[in-house]
């Protein structure tokens, strides 16, 4: 098979346009610096510890928030699956709390946690929790009744049924929720840093904006984009690895 060069060409065209537009004077180069100067700044920043520790702060807040949200959502979702009677009572609260935009909590986060990691975590966990929780509920409800009854007639206990029937059939849903939650968590992590001033890439962008070097703003924005791509690719790879046994991922071996 011949290599497809068109995606590469597309990316190069986009970079060339970015370089040409400010050079031709279509936009002022203080508003949009040419890509070459942005990359020069990026290379310079990559040599500093500040840049990498900002990335580390953002990634840490993202990862920790996502883990807390996933643990809470999975724990609560499975606990409610055991007692369907209780679940009916929670529907109204879920329907009301879920659409509340997590940024509404920003002032609360500032007042309670100040500008530390706690503020970021509050927003990240709130936003990611609902994404995962809704999927967990859907997954738990989707268990094949025949499989469940088979396990029952083999005298699997309650714990055994959860472990061997409910968990594997809900896992694809859970991972979809984690994938959606991971993207939202990154958005909220950067938001908290940008608006509240918690340490991380967002805070660096806010600082760079008030400085005199627009190329630095673009270099940092570019970094968040790279981080976003890595998160997407990483989560998707992990999902495929964990679901290698599932019909949606499994491919028949060609003969």
């Amino acid at each position: 098979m011949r290599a497809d060069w068109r995606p590469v060409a597309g990316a190069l065209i986009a970079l060339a346009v970015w370089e040409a537009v400010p050079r031709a004077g279509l936009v002022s180069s203080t508003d949009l610096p040419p890509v070459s100067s942005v990359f020069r700044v990026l290379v310079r920043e990559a040599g500093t510890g500040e840049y990498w520790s900002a990335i580390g702060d953002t990634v840490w807040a993202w990862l920790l928030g996502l883990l807390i949200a996933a643990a809470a959502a999975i724990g609560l979702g499975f606990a409610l699956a055991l007692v369907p009677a209780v679940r009916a009572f929670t529907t109204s609260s879920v329907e009301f709390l879920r659409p509340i935009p997590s940024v509404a909590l920003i002032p609360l986060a500032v007042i309670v946690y100040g500008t530390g990691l706690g503020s970021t975590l509050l927003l990240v966990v709130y936003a990611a929790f609902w994404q995962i929780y809704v999927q967990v509920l859907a997954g738990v409800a989707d268990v094949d009744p025949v499989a469940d009854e088979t396990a029952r007639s083999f005298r699997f206990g309650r714990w055994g049924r959860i472990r061997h029937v409910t968990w594997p059939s809900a896992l694809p849903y859970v991972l979809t929720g984690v994938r959606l939650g991971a993207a939202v968590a990154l958005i909220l992590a950067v938001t908290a840093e940008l608006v509240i001033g918690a340490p991380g890439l967002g805070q660096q962008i806010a600082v760079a904006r008030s400085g005199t070097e627009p190329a630095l703003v673009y270099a940092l924005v570019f970094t968040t984009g790279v981080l976003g791509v890595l998160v997407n690719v990483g989560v998707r790879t992990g999902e495929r690895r964990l679901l290698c046994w599932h019909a949606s991922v499994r491919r028949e071996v060609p003969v």
Partner: protein
Amino acid sequence: MRVVRWFLLPIVLIGVWWAASAGGRNFFLPTPPAVAKAFGPTWTWPTIRADVVPSVVRLLVGFAIAGVAGVLLGLAIGSSARLRAYTEPVLEFLRAVPPPVLVPVVMLFAGIDDTMKITVIGFGCVWPVLLNTIEGVRAVDPVLGEVCRAYRIGRLTRLRTLVLRGASPQIMTGLRQALAIAIILMVISEMFAASSGLGFTIVQFQRSYAIPEMWTGIILLGLLGVVLAGLFGLAERVVLRWYFGLRRSGRGAQ
């Protein structure tokens, strides 16, 4: 019984809030009556007109621009394999940029007025719409496309009755994701740089330690999110009535 099921947990939660805040031990957590009492004087009609209405208008304008642009671009890119191959990596990258970082970037161009906020909202919301439209157009049944061609159905009619219709479930999914992002961007653009608006007002309350008023702002923002999500759900039910009907009859046939 349904009424009990619907209201029991919210009542319990408010009760817990009340118990935790009673006696004024916690300065940051006012009692529910204190917040309720602050709501009326804080959000009078003049304040709503000055701060809430402009915010909502900006949100809707940005969302509408993103919706139209996303669907049109998505139709173009989705129906051309060549265009898709060229644009894919660029779109993947632009989508991955967390939209809030656009606020400082767009401020470089457009200052801090309405144009900036609408641009930020539009630019941030367009990606879910665009990518979902592309996926939706790609997934349209190829046999139906050939049937259209065999019956010599015109390009425009085919676009309207087959492609747009067939992709509409995915387009609505994209629009729903975009709406959530639009609310986030509206609030952030106002918190970051503005002199009016819902986000701005809430941050003002927080900075002046007007705690019950701040809570009313949070609640109002939450209500706005709930109302918008509810309206979107209604619109979706109208637009996708054929689709939900199809799925229901498909399930019944099994």
